[in-house]
């Protein structure tokens, strides 16, 4: 479940960065052409993959519920942490992006 939580967290981070305002606030530069669109696509893709993995690992009943739960927790952490620790959260998102899929592959 940790891998799913991490992927969901990275997914929401990508969706957040896909908004021009947040992109320039967080990364300190204007988004390039197509960057926002690829971020949005990546974000939705990560959410979708985490959902598929969750249902695959835990079945429909538990999978759906736990997916929603870890996603809500992740995005709440992101939104309320952002004004205080933006760099830390960006780092966490990057780490989740790497660690999430790795865990999913190696830990099942």
């Amino acid at each position, binding site marked *: 479940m940790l891998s799913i939580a991490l992927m969901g967290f990275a997914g929401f981070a990508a*969706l957040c960065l896909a908004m021009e305002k947040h992109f320039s606030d967080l990364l300190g530069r204007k988004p390039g052409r197509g960057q926002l669109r690829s971020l949005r696509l990546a974000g939705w893709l990560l959410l979708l993959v985490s959902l598929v993995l969750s249902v695959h690992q835990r079945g429909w009943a538990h999978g759906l519920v736990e997916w929603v739960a870890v996603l809500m927790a992740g995005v709440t952490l992101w939104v309320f942490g952002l004004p205080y620790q933006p760099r830390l959260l960006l780092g966490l998102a990057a780490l989740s992006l790497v660690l999430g899929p790795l865990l999913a592959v190696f830990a099942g």
Partner: protein
Amino acid sequence: MKEGFRQAMAWLHTWTGLIFGWLLFAIFLSGTLSYFKEEISHWAQPELRSHALDPLASLGLAQGYLEANAGHSASWMIRLPSEREAALSVGWRDPEGGRRGFVRKSLDAQSGQPVEARDSRGGDFFYRFHFELQMPYPWGRWLSTFCAFIMLLGLVTGIITHKKIFKEFFTFRPGKGQRSWLDGHNAIGVLVLPFHLMISYSSLVLFMYMVMPAGILASYGGNTNGYFNDLFGRDEVPKVANVATPLVPLERLYAKVQEQVPGARIGFIQVQNPGDLNARVTFTQSAADHVAYKRSASWTFDGATGALLNQGAPESAAMMTSFSFAGLHMGNYAGPWLRWLYFVFGVAGTAVIGTGLVMWLGKRQLKHAKSERIPGELRLVEVLNIASMSGLLLAVAAFFWANRLLPVGLEGRANWEINSFFLLWALSLLHAALRPGRRAWGEQLGLGALAFALLPLLNALTTGQGLDHSVAVGDWAMAGFDLTALGTGAFLAWAAAKMLRPPKPVAKRAPRASKASVEAVEVK
């Protein structure tokens, strides 16, 4: 969307939120605590020790105890110890003894001996308060169900009122006064929306029979018991044959259930007509095993022969839907980490209500910032805000302090714990009425911080099961309670410090988000 409609919804959101906010805050907080009902009860009755789980041995102990002490009774009930409940609970119907003709005993899961634990309602108090509000049946259930309806209404009107639900999905701007409160209110509301919607909608499903009884009354007439018998698939129990027959060992029946569903955890076991030819034994699978409540997960045996008579009736699709909502609401299926998330989301729901109440007042106080006194109606809201939020937290702390300080032999001890809760709540109302707003907040939050932060120490001094002990033996329910109390204390101390400091003037225009701060607060 027409602006008139949105404004009407904002009006509805504002005023239903104010009128029911105080009660909803209490319902949400007690409901949140109820996710740790078993753990709170464990803390409240430290005499009950937890042991490694051994269902077969527990069953044997329970049967032995009941045969020796309740042979005359027509009906027994056994609850096996679980990951969350240390005690082996047994109960039996006895017209002459116990509360409402039912005797309950908590046995030590290892020795099978009854444990004389202190008289306390523990987590059950918060659980019952959550939907009965300490009112006589059925008024509390009616009122809390109505509040659930208002909560659902508040969510829907809130979504309609919120103009930038997607544009500001990731937005929280602290340190900007009213703007930050609104951001926080919106963000917790929107980000945890699936939980909020599930909780309020499912409460209506849970009390469907009270909210919309017409269908039941039309089909069953006055015999509502018939409806529940059909719903839960209960069978009629045969009459006593008056032929003494020894009850089969329950361990054997347990093994048969395990053949049917390997690894099934058993919630409770009911024995009808024990020691008679017509004995019936029903095993019900623990609610922890499924997300949805399942009536089919029960097995009834002939108590004399040990033959499996029937399994619980299967659920229809409509039933599965409502049982799923019931299961999701109560979260019995949730393991430790998911249970913590439930708790966190419950706190989030409580915070949505609390921030809403604070904002209602804050907006209106701004208009009177220059005058000496605020109008009476605003002062009333302020007093009620303080008592219903920080006062309630003090009341919760009072319940736990009473649990440790009241003498064990006190007559009606459990009731005195509850009295302490309400007494402190009433005192907090008085205090809020006598002190100026910010001071009252600060003092109550400060006292709350002390009361919660010192609970682990009080626990260690009075029971010897403080953090040093509970962590060492791995009693995580006990340690978790103490650590949560410490955390609550720290949070309240932070909030109290903010309130006791003089308010700092809010910057009119923040350098970075200058566009945002110009926007007016939408909810009127």
